[in-house]
C-alpha cells in the first residue's frame, strides 16, 4: 500500500508558510505550490496579509505587479464564483507570489482595498470593479476606468454576452468631482482646470489629462484612459489560442513581436512543449530588434515633443530598416503575427543572418548622431534634467517596471531576474540610473538599445544554420503542407487543430517576460477547450500611466508633456 504524501513545497512556499505560521494570519490563509507559490486568503484578512507580505523582513514582496478578477461561472469545482488574483514581486529575491482571494458573496462580490498598502493597486482595483463589479471597500476613487461611465453591466463576467454594441455620448462622461468647481484660495491666482487631450499631439494616442493649474504649475491632475479599449481579454475568451496572436500584436503595437512571444510562452508552458533552439533564437533576435524599435519610437517622439525633430527622423530610419527585415520574415511590418504556439509561422528567409548583421552595423551610426545632437544640448538638458523625477521608493510603490523603474535605480529586468530563452547565456548589462528624471530615462533607453544590439550579435553567433523553428508535435503545430496535401493522418491533425484549436490542459499559469516598457505578463486559465477560459494580460503601461498623474504635480504643463514622452505610453496596451 502506498501512502499519499504531500508533495514537497518549493523553498519560497516553504518560507512563506514558516513566516505565516507564527502570525494571527496563520489560520486564515493557506499556502500552496502551483506554478507560483500561491496564498489563498479570505477577503477580510487580505489587507493585513498585504501589509505582512510587504513589511515582513523575510518576505518583502515590495513590487505590486497585478490584480485582476476571474469568473468561475462555467468552471465547476472552484471554491466560489468570483475570485481576485494578485501577483506580487520581491525585488530582493526576484520571486513572484500569487494571492488568491475567493469572494464568497456571488451577488455582491466585495473585498477591502489594498491601495493603502500598495498605492499601485489603485487603478488595478478600478479595473476589476469596472470589468467584474468587485466592490473594493475603502477605495478612494472607485469608478469605471476602461469602459465608458454610462456602460451598464460588467463586461468580463461570463454571463455578459460578447458582441453587444453600445452607443455612448460624451455628455455622459463624468469629470472628477474636484474638476467641476473652481477653487479660489486667498493669496492665489484663481486656479483653473484645463483638459489636455484626449486628442492632443503630445498624448501619442488617446489619453485625457485633466489638470488644475495655479499659474503655470499643475497642482492636481487626473488621467482618463480607456478610449482605445477593445475588449482584448473578452475576445480572447471566444477565440482559439493561436487566434489570439494577431490580437496580441495590437497591444503594444510598437513592439508587436514581444507581445506575441510573451503570450505563446504561457500556452507553451501549460502544454509543456519545447520549441527548438533555432525557433527560440529567432524569437529572441526579433524581440530585441523590436525592443530597439520601441525605444527608438519613445526617444524620437519624446524629443519631438520638446522640439527636436531631426532625432526623430534618424531614429525612425532604424525602425524603417527593422520593419523591412520583419516584413521579409513574416509578411507584415507592424502587425506581425509571426509566432505561433510551439514555434513560428514559417522559417526565416535565407538571407536573414546577413540582413541582421547589416542592421547591427547601421543602427549604432544613427544612435551616435542622436547622441551628438542631444546629450550636451543645453535646451534638452534643461527640459529633461530634473523634471518628472521618480525616486526609488516612489517607483517601487507605484509598481513601475521596465526602463522607468531602472532609471530610478532598481536593476529589475525580467531577462536578468528570471532568464527565459537564452538570456542567461548572453553577456549583457542592465543599464540603470539613480537620477530618476526624464533625462535618466532617455539615457537608460539609449543604453538598452546598445545592449540589445549586443544580445542580437551573440544570438546570431549561436543561431543554428538549419533546423526546425517549430515543435513537431502536430497536436499543437500545423503539420507541413506537403504532408497535409498527400497524407491522411497529417490532414486529420491539420483538421483537428484548425477546427478545434489546441487542447491546453486545464489549469492556470502566469508567465512574464520583459516587454518594451516593463514586465509583460500573461495569466491564462484553461478549461481544456481550444481557447483560454480567461486570459489576463499584465500591461506594463497601465502601472506606468497610473504614476503619471502623481509625477506631474508641481511641474509645469510643458514638463508634463516631456514626462509623458518618457513614460512611453502605448494606448493599445494601456486600454487593451
Amino acid at each position, binding site marked *: 500500500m502506498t501512502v499519499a504524501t504531500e508533495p514537497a513545497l518549493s523553498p519560497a512556499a516553504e518560507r512563506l508558510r514558516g513566516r505565516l505560521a507564527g502570525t494571527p494570519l496563520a489560520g486564515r490563509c493557506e499556502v500552496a505550490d502551483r506554478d507560483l507559490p500561491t496564498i489563498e486568503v479570505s477577503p477580510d484578512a487580505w489587507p493585513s496579509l498585504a501589509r505582512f507580505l510587504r513589511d515582513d523582513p523575510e518576505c518583502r514582496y515590495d513590487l505590486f505587479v497585478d490584480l485582476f478578477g476571474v469568473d468561475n461561472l462555467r468552471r465547476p469545482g472552484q471554491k466560489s464564483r468570483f475570485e481576485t488574483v494578485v501577483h506580487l514581486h520581491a525585488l530582493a529575491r526576484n520571486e513572484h507570489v500569487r494571492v488568491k482571494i475567493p469572494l464568497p458573496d456571488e451577488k455582491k462580490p466585495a473585498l477591502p482595498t489594498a491601495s493603502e498598502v500598495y498605492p499601485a493597486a489603485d487603478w488595478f482595483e478600478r479595473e476589476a470593479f469596472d470589468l467584474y463589479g468587485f466592490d473594493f471597500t475603502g477605495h478612494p476613487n472607485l469608478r469605471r476606468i476602461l469602459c465608458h461611465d454610462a456602460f451598464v453591466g460588467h463586461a468580463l463576467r461570463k454571463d455578459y454576452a460578447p458582441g453587444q454594441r453600445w452607443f455612448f455620448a460624451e455628455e455622459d462622461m463624468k469629470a472628477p468631482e474636484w474638476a467641476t468647481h473652481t477653487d479660489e484660495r486667498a493669496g492665489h491666482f484663481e486656479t483653473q482646470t484645463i483638459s489636455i487631450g484626449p486628442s492632443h499631439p503630445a498624448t501619442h494616442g488617446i489619453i485625457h489629462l485633466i489638470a488644475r493649474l495655479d499659474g503655470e504649475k499643475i497642482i492636481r491632475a487626473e488621467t482618463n484612459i480607456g478610449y482605445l479599449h477593445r475588449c482584448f481579454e473578452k475576445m480572447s475568451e471566444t477565440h482559439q489560442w493561436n487566434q489570439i496572436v494577431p490580437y496580441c500584436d495590437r497591444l503594444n503595437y510598437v513592439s508587436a513581436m514581444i507581445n506575441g512571444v510573451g503570450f505563446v510562452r504561457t500556452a507553451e508552458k501549460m502544454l509543456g512543449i519545447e520549441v527548438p533552439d533555432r525557433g527560440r533564437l529567432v524569437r529572441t533576435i526579433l524581440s530585441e530588434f523590436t525592443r530597439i524599435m520601441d525605444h527608438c519610437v519613445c526617444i524620437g517622439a519624446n524629443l519631438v515633443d520638446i522640439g527636436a525633430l531631426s532625432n526623430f527622423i534618424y531614429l525612425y530610419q532604424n525602425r524603417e530598416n527593422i520593419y523591412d527585415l520583419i*516584413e521579409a520574415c513574416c509578411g507584415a511590418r507592424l502587425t506581425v503575427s509571426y509566432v505561433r504556439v510551439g514555434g513560428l509561422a514559417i522559417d526565416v528567409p535565407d538571407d536573414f543572418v546577413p540582413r541582421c548583421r547589416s542592421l547591427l552595423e547601421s543602427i549604432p551610426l544613427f544612435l551616435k548622431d542622436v547622441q551628438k545632437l542631444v546629450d550636451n544640448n543645453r535646451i534638452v538638458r534643461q527640459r529633461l534634467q530634473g523634471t518628472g523625477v521618480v525616486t526609488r521608493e516612489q517607483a517601487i510603490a507605484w509598481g513601475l517596471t521596465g526602463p522607468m523603474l531602472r532609471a530610478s535605480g532598481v536593476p529589475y529586468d525580467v531577462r536578468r531576474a528570471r532568464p527565459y530563452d537564452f538570456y542567461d547565456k548572453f553577456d549583457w548589462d542592465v*543599464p540603470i*540610473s539613480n537620477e530618476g528624471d526624464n533625462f535618466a530615462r532617455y539615457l537608460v533607453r539609449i543604453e538598452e538599445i546598445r545592449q540589445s544590439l549586443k544580445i542580437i550579435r551573440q544570438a546570431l553567433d549561436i543561431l543554428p544554420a538549419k533546423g526546425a523553428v517549430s515543435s513537431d508535435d502536430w497536436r499543437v503545430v500545423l503539420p507541413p503542407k506537403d504532408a497535409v496535401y498527400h497524407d491522411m493522418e497529417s490532414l486529420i491533425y491539420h483538421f483537428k487543430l484548425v477546427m478545434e484549436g489546441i487542447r491546453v490542459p486545464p489549469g492556470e499559469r502566469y508567465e512574464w517576460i520583459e516587454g518594451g516598457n516593463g514586465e509583460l505578463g500573461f495569466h491564462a486559465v484553461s478549461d481544456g477547450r481550444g481557447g483560454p477560459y480567461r486570459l489576463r494580460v499584465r500591461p506594463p503601461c497601465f502601472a506606468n500611466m497610473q504614476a503619471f498623474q502623481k509625477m506631474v504635480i508641481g511641474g509645469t504643463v510643458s514638463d508634463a508633456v516631456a514626462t509623458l514622452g518618457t513614460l512611453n505610453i502605448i494606448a493599445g496596451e494601456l486600454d487593451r
Partner: protein
Amino acid sequence: MSGVIDVSARIPDRLTFWQRLYLPEIFRGMAVTLRHLVLNVVNPRRMPTIQYPEQKRNYSARFRGKHILKTREDGTLKCVACYMCAQACPAECITIVAGEHPKIAYEKYPVVFDIDMMRCVFCGYCVDACPKDAIWMTRNYEMAFFTREEAVFSIDRLRESKAEIDAHGYGYRPYYPGDGTTPPTDASRLPVVAGSGERDALRQAGVALPNRHVGAGPLNATSQAAKFTA
C-alpha cells in the same frame, strides 16, 4: 550574464562652460544634420523616403496583401468549401456557402466566398489553414473603396487573374519547410474528372442550399453573441 551599469555616472551631470554657451553645441549639431543633407543630395538613393504613389515599396514575397482564390488548370476554383479558413479566421470575415457541383466529382464547391476586407486583419491564418492550397495572398495592398458594400470581396474579385499577378505578384502562400520559397504544387492543380451528375438529382429532390448568412452589419455581432449566450 554580466553586471549592472549606471548610465548617469558616465555622463557629467553639469554641462561645461562651452556647452552652456549653447552656440558651440548648436554648431556641432548642425554639422550632423548638414552631413546627412549633403550625403543625401550627393546620393539620393540613400534617402529612405519613398515617393508614393509614383514609386512603390518593394515588399517581400511573403507580403500579406489581398487574397486570391487559386484555380485548377481548367479554371475552376481549387476551393472545396471545407470552411477551414473561415474557422481559422480570427476576425470572422470569411463567409462561405457550399454547394454541390452537378458536374464534377468533387463533393463541394463554394457558391459564395466572401471576404470582408474591412474586418480582415491580414494575418494569413486562412492561407495556413487551407488543406487544398486554394487560397493565397498577393502583394496587392491598394484596395481602397468608397462604401462598406464594396469592401466585401466576392469570388469574382478574389479569383486569381493573370493581370493582377503580373501587376503585384504573389505574396504569402503555404510554405514548405526547408528553403521556404518553393511554390507548392499539389494534386488539386489538375482538372477534375466529370462526375455522373447524380448529386444534382439529389439536390433537385429537395436538399436546399443554406441561405447566405447576413450578419448585423459589418461588426457581425450576432454571430458572436449566438455562440456564447448567457
